[in-house]
């Protein structure tokens, strides 16, 4: 019999082995690993005795859960209509130049992943983006540069 890894087992113990526990378990795995891998999904399916496809369906439904390896900070720019009209494309262009990656990619140092997402509920203050859980609104190219630099600086301080 295959063994479920400890992380998942503990989470299943904590949240229970019901289908309703799926989302909290996924959230916790993501928090710990910044990714929900194929193997982890299989383990979750086994612990909750549901189909692996269901786990995948749920994991991919929530855009804040990632199933592919991501950077430490995931930048999600709102692509929905209001932000689009407020110039989210310029923001993306600025970020792509700043980070030297295209949309959907992760920087070689593993720090940032650049992605689009659906409406963040900040339409009145668009364009809007999230960096992990933190929202940033009324973005301009200049503002974006400052924000990214701040994150980079913090990283350096932590490292030194």
């Amino acid at each position, binding site marked *: 019999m295959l063994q479920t890894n400890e992380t998942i087992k503990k989470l299943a113990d904590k949240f229970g082995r019901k289908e309703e526990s799926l989302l909290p378990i996924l959230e916790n795995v993501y928090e710990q690993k910044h990714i929900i891998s194929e193997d982890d*999904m*299989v383990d979750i399916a*086994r612990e909750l005795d549901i*189909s*692996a*496809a269901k786990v995948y*369906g749920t994991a*991919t439904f929530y855009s804040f859960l990632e199933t592919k390896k991501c950077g430490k900070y995931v930048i999600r720019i709102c692509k929905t209509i209001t932000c689009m009209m407020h110039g989210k494309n310029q923001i993306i262009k600025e970020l792509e130049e700043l980070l030297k990656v295209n949309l959907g990619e992760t920087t070689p140092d593993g720090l940032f992943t650049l992605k689009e997402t659906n409406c963040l509920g900040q339409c009145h203050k668009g364009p809007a983006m999230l960096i992990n859980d933190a929202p940033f609104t009324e973005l301009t190219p200049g503002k974006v540069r400052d924000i990214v630099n701040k994150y980079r600086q913090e990283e350096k301080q932590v490292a030194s």
Partner: protein
Amino acid sequence: MKEQVNLKIDNLSVSVDEGTTILEAAKKINIRIPTLCHHEDLCVAGNCRVCVVEQAGLDRLQPACANPVSEGMEIFTNSLKVRNSRKQIIELLIAEHRAECTTCYKNGKCELQSLTNEYIVGENGFIPLVPLKGYTVDEFSPSIIKDDSKCIRCQRCVRTCDQIQSISALTVAHKGGEMKVSTFFEKPIYEVVCTNCGQCVNRCPTGALTEKVYINEVWDALYNPEKFVVVQTAPAVRIALGEALDMKPGEIVTGKMVAALRRIGFNAVLDTDFSADLTIIEEGNELLHRLKRALKDKDPDVKIPMTTSCSPGWIKFIEHTFPDMLENLSTAKSPQQMFGALAKTFYAQKMGVDPANMVSVSVMPCTAKKFEANRPEMRASGYQDVDYVVTTRELALMVKQAGIDFGSLPDDDYDSIMGESSGAAVIFGATGGVMEAALRTVYEVVTGREVPFDGLNITPVRGMENVREASIKIEDPVPEWDFLDGVEVKTCVAHGLSNAKKVMEAVKSGKADYHFIEIMACPGGCLGGGGQPLPTSPEIRKKRSEAIYREDSGKKIRKSHENPEIVQIYEEFLHEPLGHKSHELLHTNYVARQRY
């Protein structure tokens, strides 16, 4: 009795039971409301919205499939607002759909296509999004093809795989514009827990899920003068094929089907029913052997209950879901594979045909049979035992391609040997049929008398109940089986894999003490198989089932062991049930697979 509710639909009065949906109420007075995500076999989804109707006093249109009637309701199914909205919904669906009907396998049988036809959805619809979508087509499986560019996301397949089969190999992944029907991690269907049962194919309204088609390979073999092409036809094909050729459900077309196959050019038209009879002999003897080891020899290693093994969807399901219970499966191959193994050995010898030049084709009500034929275990003759499997639907197409007017064909008879069968073989096509056939033989072997049921009809195992139990008491057995005296042989029948799962869980936990279990992967048994003519509904399956039992009662021979060709093949070739030859050709083993 339920409370009656009175309402008006398109100004016509109707009264229906409380809880009836608007859709059903309209159907009762012959008003058809178009649907896509709705299916009689499945729970309500209410996601496609083509069934919207107008309700007097309400501004918003209501989906008819998802709303129950209420007293005094006034419904309009064809108002301007309804028409416009319906048309717009269809246009939106088409904007995301690779509408290439002329080259689509579903052409002429597609629910989306007939709606676009009715509503004359023209060129001035929405901007086509298909080029932007990056759709994929999964063609790796020998059974099922999944083409996302034809999917309208109605989720009938997802509900089928979950509710009827309790597998959930398919799910809804992503959301919004990216939402799609997907397997685990978007892997090919071939690599996941899919059983190839084809129930999703039967319920997909479009060409997004279809069977893999082998028609051209079969024609190639038929046109090749070097090849000797034999065909076998499964029990459930003869009672359903007519539906795909302009006949009503429930017509028995055995004779016409044989005539058509001969016209198409098969060198020998033979019958899977023959090998169904053979399955009964082998499997019935295996059951008796197991009972002897368990009850008389007290052998702790023998696994009881024994379950049937003729449904390849069920086999793959148990391999994935209960890999520790594979020893409960009978080792007897399915009738298709018994036939295949004998065709290229016994039959080839008898006809003086080199098995290397023989092409063995089977016509099946089933998509999982395509996978089964491709299993590495199924090469007992030294060749692939069954080369190509075509479904009932594919055979209907071949009949059309050959320009045959099916309805006017005179009845014809199967070739011999391997063409004769008993009524017990015919009922393999219905849930409970294998059990009944086995009991007819086993009881007689053990007691020397016929089963104590009027006209050999073991009615307790018949019907469409999800799970049926029956027990039969052995009294006064012949000396060889005296240890069975007074034993109540407990049997259970289940169809649809969600029911199979319940039964097997009960067995696993020790709550059930059956001796013999029949399981068919598809609702209704093979007659509701994933390769049968479309559409499918409880009513159609009932008609097919009635036809099967009619065919049985009309047969001269009703018991497998009385089929003279079965007697002959044991005399000439196999010698004895479970003997050396049988083990080599007619029995198999199973593999444990991943559950997740």
